[in-house]
């Protein structure tokens, strides 16, 4: 599948950039004419992935977060969020709802939220090397909204 358009964004893992990252990716995705719910889905999923890079991947230090996104024919959208942080030992366990290694104010629901708001999620991680989360979503778009009335 060949992308119609691509973007890349590199940010420092500072929490103030969470809002910047989700808004920027959502603005790029807007080229596919998604409806409001679909834009919120992307915003929320990207916010989860970027927050994870900041609070888990780089924890106490500041590193770089690499975001790549692409749009395809027929309303298909893909976004990849990568850190070069600590990595995840057991990805399957990490993705279980309510699993968290931090506790406190973390609910352990980031991956569950990404899964419920996207059509497809892929997580590749290596301890000491970092983590890449790839999210895919098909937009039905505003026309679908109108059809629903």
């Amino acid at each position, binding site marked *: 599948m060949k992308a119609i358009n691509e973007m890349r964004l590199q940010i420092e893992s500072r929490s*103030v950039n*969470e*809002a910047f990252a989700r808004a920027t990716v959502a603005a790029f995705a807007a080229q596919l004419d998604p409806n409001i719910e679909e834009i919120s889905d992307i915003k929320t999923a990207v*916010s989860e992935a970027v927050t994870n890079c900041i609070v888990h991947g780089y924890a106490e230090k500041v590193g770089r977060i690499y975001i790549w996104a692409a749009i395809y024919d027929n309303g298909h959208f893909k976004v990849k969020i990568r850190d070069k942080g600590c990595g995840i030992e057991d990805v399957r366990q990490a993705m279980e709802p309510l699993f968290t290694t931090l506790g406190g*104010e973390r*609910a352990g*629901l*980031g991956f*569950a939220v990404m899964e419920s708001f996207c059509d497809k999620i892929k997580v590749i991680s290596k301890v000491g090397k970092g983590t890449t989360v790839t999210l895919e979503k098909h937009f039905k778009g505003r026309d679908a909204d109108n059809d629903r009335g």
Partner: protein
Amino acid sequence: MAIRISSTPVRVTVELSGEIDHHNAAALRLEADEAIQRSLAPNVRLDFGEVTFMDSSGIGFVLGRYRIAESCGSHIEVVNLSGRNYSMMKLAGLDRLVTLKRK
């Protein structure tokens, strides 16, 4: 992101507005907890009516306040939830710990 707190003998009301994410939640937490702990009211109302965005940090925020309120013997109700935020909180099972009310 803004927080407004008001208090009566029976209820502490915490009105949130704007976007709740990991970055914003830290400041909200401090203010909300201070008000909850200072008051002796049996009911804590978290008003999400003006919340325009939240991710799982919003769920963590409610969970954290639930723990504080429970230790003070008070009950939490989360009100004016958008359909979307209501579903996220249900997904998290928050309906078993606090009262959830949609807009």
